[in-house]
């Protein structure tokens, strides 16, 4: 299979830099897969599982927010948060999920807080889904 240059960064640093054969991730518009020599492409990243296929095998990660750019056989993923499956703190995600569910069940939440909590809950769910399969 043909390779392309993949670079994944988040504010925590560089998560991956090197060759890859395929990357699948969730954009705000749905799931996309990028293969080598993809056309020039820009998308904003949603919340979901990212799959990276390299010569060594498959790796999964939780990718949340940010942007994706493809140009000149290079793929840059500038994520808000990106964690490889093995780096996910399952206990923390579980705690976040429990907390948000408890908070969302309360009455009289204002709109902003509700949106924030919903987003937090979704993020926790994504992390757990990635970590547990």
């Amino acid at each position, binding site marked *: 299979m043909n390779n392309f240059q993949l670079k994944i960064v988040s*504010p*925590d*640093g*560089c998560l991956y830099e090197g060759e890859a054969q395929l990357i699948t991730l969730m*954009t705000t*518009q749905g799931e996309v897969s990028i293969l080598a020599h993809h056309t020039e492409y*820009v998308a*904003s990243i949603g919340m979901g599982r990212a799959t990276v296929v390299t010569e060594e095998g498959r790796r999964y990660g939780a990718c949340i927010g940010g942007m994706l750019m493809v140009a000149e056989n290079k793929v840059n993923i500038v994520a808000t*948060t990106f964690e490889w499956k093995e780096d996910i703190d399952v206990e923390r995600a579980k705690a976040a999920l429990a907390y948000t569910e408890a908070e969302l069940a309360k009455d009289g939440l204002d709109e902003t807080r509700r949106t924030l909590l919903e987003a937090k809950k979704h993020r926790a769910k994504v992390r757990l889904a990635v970590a547990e399969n």
Partner: protein
Amino acid sequence: MAGVSTKAIKSRMKSMESTRQITKAMELVAASKLRGAQERALNNRTYFNTLFETMDMISKGGSEFPSPFMKSPEGGKPLFIVIAGDRGMAGGYNNNVFKYTVSMLPENAVIFPLGKRAGEYFKRSRWECISEAVPVADMTVGSCYTVSRMLADQYREGRFSSISIVYTELVSLLTQTPRSKELLPVRFNDDRTVRKASFIYEGGDQAVFDSIVPEYMAGVLYCALKEGFASEQAARRTAMDAASKNADEMISKLTLHYNMARQAAITQEITEIVAGSEQ
């Protein structure tokens, strides 16, 4: 007389010692915070550079769509996000940022202060602050996003003509330089001959571009905060190291004075005794 002076010197020595203890402790705290902060700032630079490279490539692709983030609204005021520390005792860290900012501020600029010190300083200045200062210690990735989205929205409404950020770059552990960067409007590379790539934007070019811009701003803001925090710790460590050294010097001088005074007192006493016994 001799007795009083040794007592006065002794009490000064005591107060000096406790000052030295404080400065030494602050130095150690700053040094340990610096280690982590420096590493985070370095990690951030990778992110920042990639972010910038990505934006640059997108901008080289040019655009045929009118994004509100590319033009500067008329009648708006230039906004400056100024990042300083929450606390003093960091040498020239806060002051350097203020001096640098003031030297480049236009008359009609508005300020968004980050860090308690920045808030205090600009409240007293003739420039208008758009909000109370947010302590930098409270700024997380999440709050960076909230802030940038809010500012981007206000920019779109035409409240600001440009948005710039002023922060301190950690050049080395001994040198920190204030810098500024223009965030909005996004300047497109006019040199269209470089490369004319037409990007496919998933879900409508303008919509994607407009959602990417706040992300970009948040990224830059977060990096600038981390860089500033590392600079603050480095500045504090240097300043406190110098303060501890000065205190040491002062203590050794005072010890010398104290011993001289004590010696003088003893000599006088002996002289008095000897003079008494001779009579």
